[in-house]
């Protein structure tokens, strides 16, 4: 059940909202029970059999947590729990990648195992690993199975994040206060509308310039430089609007039930460095990798060389978290390398104490954006050959006799219009430029909607700011109604595959 589906919007969500409101009148606890039941139903609607996996995972980790109340067994049980979660993730996500890699290296004929990747397994596994590690470090054990289950399975974040932390979620479920629910719901509806528009209207319309081109190079074809740049830039923006849109929808949906989720994106393409990019892109994953991988590896406490090694390990594993494939590893490696270079540059600059000028600022942004765009090629391509083909084409080495030829059909909200190949290239470039302008000029959703999670928002308040007035009701209504027409495309969220 996609957030951008008619079933979700017109059946599931109203039913859950009404049931939640009725239950909340009875008691806050009843409201939490409704949300837990609805979340399990939401997951089971995809493949009922995998609901058993989710329940088993929740039950096992909750039980392990209880066992860890004994200080003598805490560490051993915690390590077993982490190993159990990683084994589960490895089995479902990495079995075929491991077999393929062994095949490639040794020639051993290992079979292809037909395993369906359970939706959201990377997210709910990581959240529970974080819980076990924190309990090992001395955090209190959760004894309420309902709150714990809802922390893991709360439907707005279950499938594609944001990656939530038990310490920021569970206390919200136990809070009795309901007085601000209408205020939060109004903000939630506005944020949800913005997220739906980002996904359905912007990301899904950009997809037409991405999917056929990458499919062509993955199948062994070539591509001209023009199409390579259009496809790569369109993907750069598609993945941002798709994932940030999903995260906004998750935040908005959670607010409808009075729950605050962490912000996942803060205008990442405005970043002036790769370090800043990772503070703005998929923030909750960066936070997890920092707290549960980079710092335990030693972080920057063990000297410069070790710091760079830790950065590379963290980013390589971060790449693998996104998908079981060498391309994801290369993508993570490129970002790791860029972070190392960025830190070296910062160290050198500190030594020289240079002041950043206007042109330098522009150059910083351009270099950062360029690196991010190039790395996306490996992230998007399904095959290594396809990625290299696309990369070559970006630098003028791609046009061959087998170059991609577009049928020249523009699809606006999936309604086809025959325009011809050259006009399509121009329209595509225009759409990419418009989307980029939105990214660079407009404030991000937390700024625009004044969304405070449980921490202080880092951005300053802008002039353009959501208010519950008629003008903003009109803006949200437009976003929602236009998106409702785009929803007939039924394109899945890109991050569902992770």
């Amino acid at each position, binding site marked *: 059940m996609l957030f951008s589906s008619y079933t979700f919007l017109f059946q599931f969500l109203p039913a859950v909202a009404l049931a939640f409101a009725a239950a909340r009148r009875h008691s806050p606890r009843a409201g939490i029970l409704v949300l837990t039941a609805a979340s399990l139903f939401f997951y089971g609607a995809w493949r009922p059999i995998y609901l058993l996996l989710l329940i088993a995972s929740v039950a096992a980790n909750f039980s392990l947590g209880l066992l860890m109340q004994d200080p003598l067994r805490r560490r051993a049980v915690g390590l077993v729990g982490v190993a159990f979660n990683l084994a589960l993730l490895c089995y479902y996500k990495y079995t075929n990648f491991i077999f393929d890699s062994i095949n490639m290296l040794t020639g051993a004929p290992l079979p292809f195992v037909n395993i369906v990747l359970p939706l959201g397994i990377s997210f709910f596994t990581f959240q529970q690993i974080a819980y076990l590690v924190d309990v090992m470090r001395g955090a209190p054990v959760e004894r309420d199975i309902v709150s714990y289950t809802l922390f893991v399975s709360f439907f707005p974040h279950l499938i594609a994040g944001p990656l939530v932390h038990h310490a920021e979620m569970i206390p919200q479920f136990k809070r009795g206060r309901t007085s*601000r629910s209408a*205020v939060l719901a109004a903000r939630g509806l506005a944020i949800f509308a913005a997220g739906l528009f980002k996904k359905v209207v912007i990301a899904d319309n950009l997809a037409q310039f991405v999917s056929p081109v990458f499919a062509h190079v993955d199948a062994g074809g070539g591509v001209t430089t023009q199409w390579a740049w259009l496809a790569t830039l369109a993907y750069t923006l598609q993945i941002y609007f798709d994932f940030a849109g999903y995260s906004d929808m998750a935040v908005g949906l959670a607010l409808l039930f009075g729950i605050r989720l962490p912000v996942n994106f803060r205008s990442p393409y405005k970043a002036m460095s790769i370090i800043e990019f990772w503070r703005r892109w998929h923030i909750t994953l960066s936070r997890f990798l920092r707290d549960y991988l980079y710092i335990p590896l030693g972080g920057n406490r063990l000297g410069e060389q070790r710091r760079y090694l830790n950065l590379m390990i963290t980013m390589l594993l971060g790449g693998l978290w996104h998908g079981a494939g060498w391309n994801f590893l290369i993508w993570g490696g490129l970002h790791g390398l860029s972070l190392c270079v960025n830190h070296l540059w910062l160290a050198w600059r500190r030594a020289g104490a240079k002041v950043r000028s206007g042109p330098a600022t522009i150059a910083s942004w351009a270099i950062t954006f360029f690196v991010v765009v190039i790395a996306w090629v490996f992230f998007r391509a399904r095959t290594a050959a396809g990625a290299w083909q696309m990369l070559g084409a970006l630098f003028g080495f791609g046009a061959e006799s087998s170059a991609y030829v577009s049928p020249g059909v523009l699809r606006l909200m999936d*309604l*086809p*219009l025959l325009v011809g190949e050259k006009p399509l290239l121009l329209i595509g470039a225009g759409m990419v430029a418009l989307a980029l302008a939105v990214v660079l000029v407009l404030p991000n959703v937390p700024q625009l909607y004044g969304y405070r999670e449980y921490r202080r928002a880092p951005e300053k308040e802008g002039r353009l700011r959501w208010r*519950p007035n*008629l003008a903003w*009701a009109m803006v949200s209504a*437009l976003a929602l*109604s236009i998106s409702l027409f785009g929803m007939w495309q039924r394109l899945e969220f890109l991050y569902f595959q992770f």
Partner: protein
Amino acid sequence: MSGLSISKSTSLPRVRTASARWITAALALTALTWLVVLAALLAIANRVHDDVPVMLAIKLPLLSSHPELIFAGESRTEYQVDPELAAQLIGKPQGSVVNIAYDAGEPLAVLAAMRREPDRFRKAHVVVSVVPFLFNEGVRSAAVYPLDVAARLGVAEQMLSFLPLRVGTLIRFIREAFASRLAADRDVAETAPQPPLSGLQVLNHTQSEDRWPADVGSHAHYASWNISGAKARFEIGALCEMVGLAGKVTVVVPPWAPRYDRASDSEWRQKDDQYVALVADAGRACGFDVLNIASVPGLGQGNYADEMHVNASGVPIYTRYLVSRLKP
């Protein structure tokens, strides 16, 4: 609407009330805006709509052989008539008989194809199958509503007829309108590759026992029975107009599966007689033959994929019978 605004000094109860009002206003405006956008899209769709849908356009390259016998219409021709066998039966070479029927195909679409390529139909015998939902106003579902009829209704009537519960039909109409325009702009009817088996599609399955409807009288195709509306007017009109554009026109009313008994299903008999009479009366007035096939000798229950379509085993039996009944 002034109550929607909240100043910083407002008390919490007032803020809550204003927030609740804002949610209501936003949802109401969404509904209103959605209706306006829908009307605009329908107006555009009405302009770009082409009466020849994609599913028919991709079959029209078959006409390049200038066939003598053209089977057209809906799924009970698409899945049941083997043109190659029919060509053998009438002693003609392959290509002289084709099957251009498609799912939920309507006479208006065939008429549009005849007008577009008159030379390919002028000397041919066109055999068109029909189905109750083509005439019954009570059937408004997205899957089978004849879109060429929808295109003739105008925006206001479209919205009044289908909103709110049949919005899917309007959405399908908009999408198909753009798709048919694209097919026309790309000249699919001329440039597409020829479909295999001269246009026959084969159903290889038989549905499980629990999916068969209990009776036909209450079947969805006969729901809210009314054959005096726009559908009947336009589709019967199309059948009549075909007569002047083809060598000969025969309209076929194909049978339902033999498990259904007309004698014991008075509701079905009554409705079916009305719609067959509607077609037969038009045939007499306009000059086309009507072939009402209540049953086919040798075609048993095992030859059916579902309540109305034969499976692969039934295709030769049905084809032989149909060809034998066609008058030269």
